[in-house]
């Protein structure tokens, strides 16, 4: 089993690590879009986080990893089992890679050809979306993703379940996951509908500071020499982080969001001219999750200051000719709103 790089050992890229943690606390924020150069540790960070999170309780033998505690979001076979018959098991949080050029039947799932041919029975072979349920779906080069797969993902992300109607099958199964997309904006544009699905967006660059670069190289080298020892070294920090996230998840229901802050969120979105109301909603959820992560009881202007660029950066596009990253505009609007 491949070892994952410890999350707390990731050097630099604070924006990205913060965004991923926030999304782990509250998955309803939507996904994280990471735009930037190649080789900046994007997939490492996602895998590291999934490794960090506590294992999830699943119904034993269910290929969708259904949650035994949830009443609604169960696949058909789990729902038909009565409560007593459901055995549970623990499984690590799944991270599924959607490779570039994945075909539709690989993503959605298809008729199980082996069983059909060898035994003559009709059974559904789950695809990548089924494996990613209750976990992370990492899409590399999301701006090069094909249109019909993008349509699929938008659909599934919106409804939280995957509906398969093909090859004589009619299957519906839960598919709730956190979408993490990465890409290089120089290679293509993202469709605005897909862009909107991502709750937070981050820009990453390879560190320009020599000392940071040396640190990255040294840690990576130490990890590859002796992964077990390296992980043991960082186990303490990882554990602390995990506890913070678990606590935050529990506390998020009781975080207080004042009316003034809501006004400020709305004012900010209005000043920047974001489309639709998703900006405000995501801002609200993100600031709340951020406050929970830090252990605060109420959301303050600091949380807003930290989360606003992440939430709003990719929603500013009125005109496709604008560059995708508009961190400075957000900053300016933020200063304006917070000083008023």
């Amino acid at each position: 089993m491949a070892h994952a790089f410890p999350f707390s050992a990731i050097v630099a890229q604070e924006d990205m690590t913060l965004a991923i943690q926030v999304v782990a606390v509250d998955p309803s924020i939507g996904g994280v879009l990471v735009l930037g150069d190649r080789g900046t540790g994007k997939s490492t960070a996602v895998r590291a986080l999934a490794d960090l999170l506590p294992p999830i309780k699943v119904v034993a033998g269910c290929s969708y990893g259904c949650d035994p505690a949830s009443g609604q979001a169960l696949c058909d076979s789990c729902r038909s089992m009565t409560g007593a018959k459901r055995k549970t098991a623990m499984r690590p949080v799944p991270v599924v890679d959607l490779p570039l050029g994945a075909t539709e039947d690989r993503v959605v799932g298809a008729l199980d050809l082996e069983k059909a041919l060898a035994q003559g029975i009709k059974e559904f072979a789950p695809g990548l979306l089924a494996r990613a349920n209750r976990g992370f779906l990492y899409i590399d080069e999301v701006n090069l993703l094909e249109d019909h797969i993008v349509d699929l993902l938008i659909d599934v992300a919106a409804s939280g379940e995957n509906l398969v109607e093909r090859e004589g099958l009619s299957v519906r199964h839960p598919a709730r996951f956190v979408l993490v997309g990465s890409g290089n904006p120089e290679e293509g544009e993202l469709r605005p509908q897909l862009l909107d699905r991502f709750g937070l967006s981050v820009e990453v660059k390879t560190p320009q500071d020599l000392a940071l670069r040396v640190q990255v190289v040294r840690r990576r080298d130490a990890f590859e020499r002796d992964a077990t020892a390296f992980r043991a070294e960082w186990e303490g920090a990882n554990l602390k982080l995990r506890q913070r996230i678990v606590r935050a998840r529990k506390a998020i229901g009781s975080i207080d969001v004042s009316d003034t802050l809501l006004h400020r969120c709305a004012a900010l979105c209005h000043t920047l001219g974001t489309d639709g109301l998703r900006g405000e909603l995501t801002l609200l959820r993100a600031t709340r999750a951020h406050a929970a992560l830090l252990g605060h009881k109420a959301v303050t202007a600091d949380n807003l200051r930290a989360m606003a660029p992440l939430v709003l950066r990719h929603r500013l596009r009125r005109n496709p000719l604008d560059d995708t990253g508009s961190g400075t505009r957000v900053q300016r609007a933020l200063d304006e709103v917070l000083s008023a």
Partner: protein
Amino acid sequence: MNGTDTEAEATRLARVWQDAQFALLALQLDPQGLGGIWLRAGHGPVREAWLASLQASGLQTVKVPQQVDDERLLGGMDLAQTLQQGRLVVQAGLLAQADGGAVLLPMAERLAPHTAAQIAQAQDQGLVHSRDGQQSAPARFAVIALDESETEEAGLAARLSDRLGLWLDLRGNGLADTLATLEALSPQELREAQAQLRQLQATPAQVQALCEAAWALGVESLRAPLMALRLAVIHAALEGRDTLDEDDLRLAARMVLGPRATRLPEMASAPDTAAATATDSPAQPPSAQTEAPPADATESAQAPEPNAELLVAAALASLPAHLLDRLALGLAPRTPARSSGSSGQALHSKLRGRPLPPRPGQPGSGARLHLLATLRAAVPKQRLRHRPEGSGKVSLRAEDFHVHRFGQASPSCTIFALDASGSAALQRLAEAKGAVELLLQQSYARRDSVCVIAFRAARAEVLLAPTRSLVRAKRALAGLPGGGGTPLASGVQAALVQARALQRAGSTPVLVMLSDGRANVSASGVGGRAQAQADALTWAGQWHSSGFAALWLDTSPQPEPLAQTLAQRMGAQYLPMPYVQAQRMAQAVQHMATQSRTL
């Protein structure tokens, strides 16, 4: 002077070959750590010699053909065997078979992007997941990518090349250089070296020096210093040493960092660097010589601390002269293509796009079996095939197979050929830029791409390669100079080259020519109106015979008969536009694009 140059070149080539041999040894020792080898060499005796050494080295290689489908690559059901034997027969994927060895990619520059992505993913994780994702098999392998592209063509995709530690370029070598071979390692030696490998570790100062050297050479990726470190460790292990020393670091800098250099460091012209380079390499490229005064031999190269400058010098010493010149001029060496090269990529994959009704055909090599249509074709023939009733199995034969069919919309690409010569006012250039941006605004919704070629002075230049990215377009069009003669023939020629490449890649090209037609520079770059116009007419005729659509926007104040003739010869629509307005231009282009699409 010529004598020493050729001598220096010969020594350099001999060293290149030695490095290539050493690369094989290194790969045996730590295939996963090094990532692999990117071998640029034409199809010929030199490459054959290297491949013979590869075979002799005993490294397990698995060849992955260019057209390989997911099932074969990652593992899955073997359809033919399953049907024949009546039970499930699973085949291990090629990547799983390569565990502990190497994957050989012939014609790697034409590898499909999704195959490259799968290979890169497996390399990262050290695992392959089978199609249904339930099983995963270990797959720790190196990749040996054989790249046959010519100098000017786009080479291996960046996604793969970034992960390959050793970049070797054997294109300059002749057969005579390949006589020296290193002996292969015996199993005993291999084991000893591998044990030694685990003990060795670089000091922090050594890591620092490598990172500094990489940074000074403008190597962005952080994988490069890591792989350089590993190569240094391998070299020390092979020589049976306990610690890393200068030689290991210099070798690593030369083999890993040198080929990836994108800029020359600001040499502090310290005399000690000159001494180090003099001892390190007999070949002294001219640009390095002008910067550091030669032969201060009293300065010892035995610095107690590893010196990044020495490493940089070692890295640069291995580069051929023309590359160094490019670096000195500030031109980055040609970066590898972002996706696979445009050299003849098959236009329609059999698995991508909106589904269409199935058709009879054999599955495999990309096409996926359409089970229902197959069964529907087989069921009526069951009685004829004497299958006992109620056995629950359907007797299938190869003639029943149906495969999925997918349809892909063919996008179009608008090629702008801008006349940036002195006779066109700068204002028109600005308008043309505006039109391009407007078009991109619209075409991004339709998934069309735009390419911009500018011609002025003596030649035509591709300013913006076909792209849908607005970010890239804005950046490329930001600084567009004007002035000089009008090399119209070169402009049309460049456009034709792009158009053909686009057609091979599956797009429909459409040309928009912005010029007043007054050519005064011929195709060979020489001035002279008569020849220039004759050349322009010839190339216009070439365009016409290619059959692509074109639009000529005449930018002269009065409709220019020269432009009209050229447009006619080209088979292009002619539109006089004395006051170029971005909006009008964009509309005209759009109109024509829709026309050509519906035809």
